[in-house]
């Protein structure tokens, strides 16, 4: 024969561990509503669980309640703060001085209107933007190979011999730009 207190304890334990089904949850809620002793037992177990969890995590150097979801008000407050910061940043961007866009404007004007957020003014010739990444081949010297270029001269039987020492090359990708 099952013990009613033990059954209630089992139900409380399951619900505290997020293991109970919706019908079990409803059953527990109904029992808590109609039986003050059951409600007291639940409160006692819930408080013990909360405190022990905190104590264990503190003792073993863990964040006290790392899985705890933030309360709604805190989430709303965080979003509001982020939104306000974004608005301020946009306002600051639009109200900050701009750098001149026409070449006729003077250097002094540039100096006066220079913004920390603007690109630095171009000096001298037009700058050609370099690609961010490029592969620079490195020559790896392998076995040299010699070629001869034979050129006949004006005199019959005479040849100009050009010796060409060629190296075999191959390209390799380097991870570091030297």
């Amino acid at each position, binding site marked *: 024969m099952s013990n009613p207190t033990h059954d209630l304890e089992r139900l409380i*334990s399951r619900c505290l*561990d997020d293991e109970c089904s919706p019908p079990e949850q409803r059953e527990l809620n109904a029992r808590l509503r109609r039986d003050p002793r059951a409600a007291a037992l639940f409160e*006692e*177990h819930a408080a*013990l669980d909360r405190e*022990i969890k905190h104590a264990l995590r503190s003792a*073993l150097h863990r964040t006290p309640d790392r899985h705890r979801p933030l309360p709604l008000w805190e989430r709303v407050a965080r979003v509001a703060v982020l939104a306000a910061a974004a608005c301020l940043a946009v306002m600051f961007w639009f109200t900050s001085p701009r750098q001149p866009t026409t070449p006729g404007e003077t250097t002094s004007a540039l100096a006066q209107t220079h913004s920390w957020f603007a690109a630095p003014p171009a000096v001298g010739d037009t700058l050609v933007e370099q690609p961010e990444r490029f592969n620079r081949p490195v020559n790896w010297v392998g076995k040299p190979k010699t070629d001869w270029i034979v050129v006949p001269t004006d005199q019959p039987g005479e040849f100009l011999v050009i010796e060409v020492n060629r190296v075999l090359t191959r390209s390799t990708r380097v991870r570091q730009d030297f």
Partner: protein
Amino acid sequence: MNVLTPPSNMNRMTDATVDAEMAHALIAQAQRGSRPAVDQIVRENEGWVRGVIYGTIGRADLVDDVAQQVWTQVWQRLGSLQDPRRLRAWLYAVARNAAIDASQDRRRRSTIGLDFVADGLGDNPGRGPVKSVVGDELRETLLRAVEALPALYREPFVLRHLEDWSYAEIGNLLGLSVETVETRLVRARRLLRETLQGKVEP
């Protein structure tokens, strides 16, 4: 009735497969001697390994030392892990054995354990009934209550409360059925309630 059925089994299975593959790759890298991979394994598993150590020896002050031994052994023996899917079980065995060894060592060397037991909850008549204890004293009281639990109940209880693991996860690690895990948690709670009666305000 299966109360743990997730809303989308398919997504969960896909996630699990991806996780398993990533874990497999991570372990393979660690076995080849990649320090970052080993670091990541430590980071991902440190919490529950500490829980297992604490659950086994029931001494919070020994957890750091034993955990260090465990990770040293893991670093040395990771190559012997044949099946990466068994990582958790393998780590559990290493952690539990190290904790048991440390506990036996401690017992052999001194009688400090006896002092600890003598000072346990309910055995100290000098304290008297205290309705509510706050701060450190409360924490100490609660830890002593957990440490006074039989290891049988303490292990699943610590894993549940330290890591928020489900019954199924705890059962997988400890080699127990979900029902057994549940029963042990109920009994652990009952014992704690009896021991701590009136010491924690609801």
